[in-house]
């Protein structure tokens, strides 16, 4: 699945990024600061931006990709506005967390570890969050939801989709 990078919407950011590259292209080892700026500005490293970096700094795409994949702070997909973490610890698991996760995946049409195309949601599966007696537990952004059911999941997603 490809995220469409909206050049029109990001016009200002792209302009400011181009200026950043111009200011930094002469400094030795510019790739890291440039990638860090891109990650900060766009929230991830869109392909179009990496191509822009490649052309301006005259560094092959393969090398940029190599550097970007090495460091854990760079991401190739944007994070959604709402991050849903599904606890897959043992207690939640036996209480049907897997089914809850699948339900969320079905509703949003994406798998764990990815983000919806409208950038509203990302799904993560996590290890035990330590709320075993309230299993199954999901965490949306910073809010913890206990004893979640399939029906409740639908409600919650709708709630966050409409901006709480």
């Amino acid at each position, binding site marked *: 699945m490809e995220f469409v990078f909206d050049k029109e919407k990001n016009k200002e950011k792209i302009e400011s990024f181009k200026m950043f590259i111009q200011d930094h292209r002469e400094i*030795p080892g510019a790739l890291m600061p440039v990638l860090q700026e891109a990650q900060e500005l766009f929230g991830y490293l869109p392909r179009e931006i990496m191509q822009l970096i490649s052309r301006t700094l005259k560094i092959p795409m393969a090398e940029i990709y190599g550097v970007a994949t*090495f*460091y854990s702070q760079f991401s190739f997909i944007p994070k959604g506005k709402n991050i849903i973490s599904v606890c897959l610890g043992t*207690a939640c698991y*036996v*209480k049907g967390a897997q089914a809850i996760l699948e339900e969320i995946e079905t509703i949003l049409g994406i798998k764990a570890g990815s983000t919806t195309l409208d950038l509203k949601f990302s799904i993560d599966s996590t290890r035990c969050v330590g709320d*075993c*007696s309230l299993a199954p537990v999901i965490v949306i952004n910073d809010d913890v939801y206990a004893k979640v059911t399939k029906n409740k999941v639908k409600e919650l997603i709708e709630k966050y989709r409409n901006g709480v």
Partner: protein
Amino acid sequence: MGCRKVLTLERLQQIRKEHRPILEARVGEAGNADINEDGSIVLNGDYYKKQVRIALKNCGIINPLMIEDYIAVDGYSALANILFNKSSGEIIDDMMASNLRGRGGAGFPTGRKWNEAFKYDADQKFMICNADEGDPGAFMDRSILENDPHSVLEGMAIGGYAVGADKGFIYVRAEYPIAVKRLRTAIEQAKELGILGNNILGTGFSFDIELRLGSGAFVCGEGTALIESIEGKRGMPRTKIHRTAHKGLWQKPTIINNVETYANVPVIFQKGVDWFRSIGTEKSPGTKVFSLVGKVQNAGLVEVPMGTPLREIVYDIGGGVQDGKGFKAVQTGGPSGGCIPAHLIDTPVDFESLGKIGSIMGSGGMVVMDEDTCMVDVARFFLEFTVDESCGKCVPCREGTKRMLEILERIVSGHGEDGDIELMEDLSETISKASLCGLGQTASNPVVTTIKYFRDEYEAHINEKKCPSGSCRPLIKYFITEACIGCTRCAKSCPVDSCITGKVKERHVINQDVCIKCGTCYEVCPVKPVKAVVKG
């Protein structure tokens, strides 16, 4: 502002004179520190009284966002004095005489390192500050960077003058946003004032410092990996054909020192080599900052003379183990270090003594563990970290640590087999010998030391399928005793449907076949003084 004046020595001394009363008044008002007769300012309270603070001496006292505060505590006076009165060679001699050893972990003598770069002829040399502090549970460097950034800048400038470098880099991890911000402010202020930049104090010496950020790779704390990262590449360690002091950043002579090492440098030149050597031990002079964490009463940063017995740090300063539990071990040196058992608690903490018992000083992480901590699980935890952070260049580290982790995971889940311990010992040796950098060479230390001092715990996990500390979940069993009052609380909070059964006011029973050992029943059982649910 008008046009900027060139900073002169007189101007620097004037700032000190003008600002000192302001700082003293503020300290007096805050009341958290005492001003001694010799002019030194120290934090009050027992916790600090028992420490000797050199690297942390200004932390909590000065405002890190004001360069005048740093100057008021004699900051930049060492640099100024050196620029006017000492030659590069003299500084190198002093550094060698002080025997300041690298505080990043390996303990290499700073003077000798500087001398290598000093002697090596090149058109360009670099000073790097390694601020990529990544050990879990360690935050010494962060504290210095956030609370006393100028001491690091001054140390770097002194080093630059000594080896003949005019450019410095601070490589700081991106996970320290406040440190980054304060360093930025400090560098700006120092340049604005003219204590960094061109022709410092009119002496003709120029030194500039640039910040570079990490991006979440632990291995970049290794010197050559850090250099690769600054060069804009994947942060993988280099083969050690050349010393970095000869061929480092962009193949130019490069000095890499840790944050705490640099913070020590100005103080050594202020107070003299003899004073510095009077603290600590013969082979490890000075102090070391430790981040004392884990199951200890008073967690925090502790700076003590080298050679201080572990007992003093854990008990006299740290206040002993929390909740009256028994002391089991101290883990020093993070993922590269080892576990020191209770019977070795009188070991003096210096490079040699810790090395002898199989651990390392490391950057200064010190995690206290009590009787509830499972040593096999501790080894597993650190190895999991190393597996995640191995860069993948050397096969023994990339594959070997992974295989060791698999064995440990098997052991803690109750599937350990006869011969597992020996297999891990064998793997440890290969990984240590055949890895290029410190990460691989030391990755097995947590495993090796826990096997050495807590072999019985490994054997209990493997042979009896029991966890003596009662912390490995798959090896625990929960029972309900006759003391059960039949309140049904456990059955109601159990996450498994048909696990706990029983009628109201009658003894309940746990079905061992479906129990997931989450411990919820144990936690909610209201029976006193001894719970009706027991862990075994």
